[in-house]
């Protein structure tokens, strides 16, 4: 069977032989091609890794959906991938990723419990959708199915994760917003937005529709066809009534919609809220009583990786978990895999603001030195335990994904 994959393999092999440089014995610096979304690719991390480890990081930036597509269609064109856990039910059966050896990951046992077990402070969080702990382990290194119990082979080592909710413009909204149902509240007709990324958009819609009390889903992250039909019908109804101002499909669009005042309430990602705020515009990442929609992203290795590149990848991942990168990401509002090491690289007042829900004792700066919050501010949603502990569901790919995408197109066309 000649698939696109084998064809590409052939093409790269051909390219490699004809372009092969003369054999050099000296140990040149290894370059790792790092595939992920642009949001996860901080130039500072690449620079620091290069200083500390002598490993060059070459970023390949694509969109969320494209990361998964490349893993499936072009597995030879990257050495390290940073992808979302919810993509794993598609990626693992493709056989293009391999399990990571827990014995070679220094802090495998210190990875946050919310990722390893789905618990925060011993309490189980919501597991609707693709919760990371359900897809964290493989039966064997080259396994194409998930292990139900912890094993030696890890699918992805977390890089960042977070809990998403609705962003609002408090200056343009009267009264309190405390429920996902506000997204469909006629009070905000013509001033709301959701994402036009079907797999995530439908989850936000499901949170909102369930909050209105019209339906209780079995599993929002894995709906039945009837549930999908019901959800899309409700969305079409709202769209026809002029509820939505626009849909957005990338980070910058969501920032512009909010900053320009076209929209006063919408699904948003945490760094987008920060971006609106750095423009001096009031924007709040509003905690809601139904809880958060969480996501998690992590490092995976392509099956073909071996030799020095593989060693370098493990070295980089171990460095990533050792604190500097975790602290860097924490100061952008993300949560890292290992909390303890990140804390060592943060000032106590920073840790208190980002993780403990405390008032900022000093001005809070972004890693690039921009003012994020003035002294006295409190993080939206509070402490790590409050935010991650209130997770209701996780980003997911449904079994009925194909049907869902078709129905979503119907919604867009309605």
């Amino acid at each position, binding site marked *: *069977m000649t*698939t*696109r994959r084998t064809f590409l393999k052939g093409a790269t092999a051909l390219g490699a032989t004809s372009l092969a440089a003369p054999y050099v014995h000296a140990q040149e610096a290894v370059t790792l091609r790092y595939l992920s979304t642009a949001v996860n690719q901080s130039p500072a991390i690449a620079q620091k890794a290069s200083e500390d480890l002598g490993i060059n990081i070459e970023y390949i930036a694509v*969109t969320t*959906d*494209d990361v*998964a*597509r490349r893993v*499936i*269609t072009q597995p030879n064109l990257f050495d390290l991938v940073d992808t979302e856990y919810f993509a794993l*039910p*598609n*990626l693992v*059966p*493709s056989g293009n990723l391999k399990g990571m050896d827990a014995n070679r990951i220094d802090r495998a046992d210190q990875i946050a419990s919310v990722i390893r077990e789905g618990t925060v402070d011993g309490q189980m969080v919501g597991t609707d959708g693709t919760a990371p702990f359900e897809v964290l382990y493989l039966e064997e290194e080259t396994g194409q199915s998930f292990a139900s119990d912890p094993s030696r082979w890890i699918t992805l080592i977390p890089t960042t994760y977070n809990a998403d909710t609705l962003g609002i413009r408090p200056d343009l909204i009267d009264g309190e917003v405390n429920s996902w149902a506000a997204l469909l509240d006629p009070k905000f007709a*013509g001033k709301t*937005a959701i994402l*036009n990324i*079907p*797999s995530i958009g439908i989850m936000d819609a499901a949170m909102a529709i369930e909050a209105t009390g019209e339906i209780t889903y079995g599993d929002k992250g894995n709906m039945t066809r009837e549930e999908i039909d019901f959800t899309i019908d409700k969305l079409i109804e709202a*769209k026809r009534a002029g509820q*939505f*101002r*626009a*849909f*957005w*499909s990338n980070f910058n669009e969501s920032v*512009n919609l909010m900053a*320009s*005042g*076209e929209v006063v309430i919408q699904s948003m990602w945490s760094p987008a809220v920060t971006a609106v705020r750095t423009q001096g515009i009031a924007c709040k990442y509003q905690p809601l009583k139904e809880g958060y929609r969480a996501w998690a992203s992590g490092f995976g290795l392509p099956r073909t990786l071996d030799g020095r590149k593989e060693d370098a990848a493990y070295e980089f991942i171990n460095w990533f978990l050792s604190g500097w990168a975790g602290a860097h990401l924490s100061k952008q509002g993300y949560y890292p895999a290992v909390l303890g090491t990140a804390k060592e690289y943060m000032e106590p007042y920073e840790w208190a603001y980002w993780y403990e829900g405390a008032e900022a004792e000093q001005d809070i700066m972004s890693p690039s030195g921009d003012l994020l919050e003035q002294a006295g501010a409190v993080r939206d949603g509070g402490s790590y335990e409050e935010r991650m502990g209130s997770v209701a569901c996780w980003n997911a*790919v449904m079994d009925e*994904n*194909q049907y869902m*995408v*078709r129905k*979503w*197109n*119907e919604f*867009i*066309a*309605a």
Partner: protein
Amino acid sequence: MERVHRGVTNAVNTGAGRAARPARTRRNPFAGTGGALALALPMWLVFALFFLLPLAVTVIVSFWEFTQYSIEPAFILRNYADLFDGCLEDLPYLCTTLKTYLSTLKFCFLVWLTTLILGFTIAYFLAFHVRTLPMQVTLFLICTIPFWTSIVIRMIAWIPLLGRNGLVNQALIGMGVTDAPLEWLLYSDFSVILALTHLYALFMVVPIYNSMMRIDPALIEAAVDSGASGLQTLTNVIVPLAKPGIIIGSIFVVTIVMGDFLTIGIMGGQQIASVGKRIQTEIQYLQFPIAAANAVMLLVAVMLAISALLRMVDIRKEL
């Protein structure tokens, strides 16, 4: 009277020149059995490699099976069936596919109309009202200035103008024309048509201008001298002679708008469906076969539109 004569003679001459052309053919050194084919070969190779092959692959893949992470060779019609799912049962209500195509066709027609009116007027002004060639070239270059930046920037530039708190709304409210901001200025059919017209009017201007420049001024003089009014000259002389340019411009605009998803997406606030956006979504979710089926249908639709346009004029003869 003399002027009329000259015009008529001129016209006759042109006709004669055309008829006489075949006699001018000289002996072609490449003539012979293999020569002409050899000359055409490089073009054929490029054509086969970059057009026929991808097209064939698209058609083949449109019959394949797929799951969420793989595509497998097969011959199934399910992708096409899915595409038209509910289209018969739901009548008289339109199914998603028909609705999407209809919406795309609607934009095609409206943008064609606006670019035609705009393009024809601008070309007419350049060709007949601007007297000197340097001035014509200068004004023509000015028309191309928007093309110096990328298509996305040209599009996004409209957003701060048309938004709820944008310049247009502020001006209208300031002048007391309206009390509340006009919502339909942005993320609506209006903004999509506006942006598409802005982006593609030049594709209409260029070929029409080119056709108009070939019109022998003597013909217009003849029409005027024969007592034709301005409108009569326009409809009986200029429009028929500019028809090849109009058709070529129309083909550009229609094909571009049929496949557009970026402009409709951004200016429509992603709330308006387009065939291109659907194909993009399907590709993102690795549903290559169904995206291929969609692409084949789009191709058929575009080819139907173009063959209809070509029926109106024989381009080969006119070029």
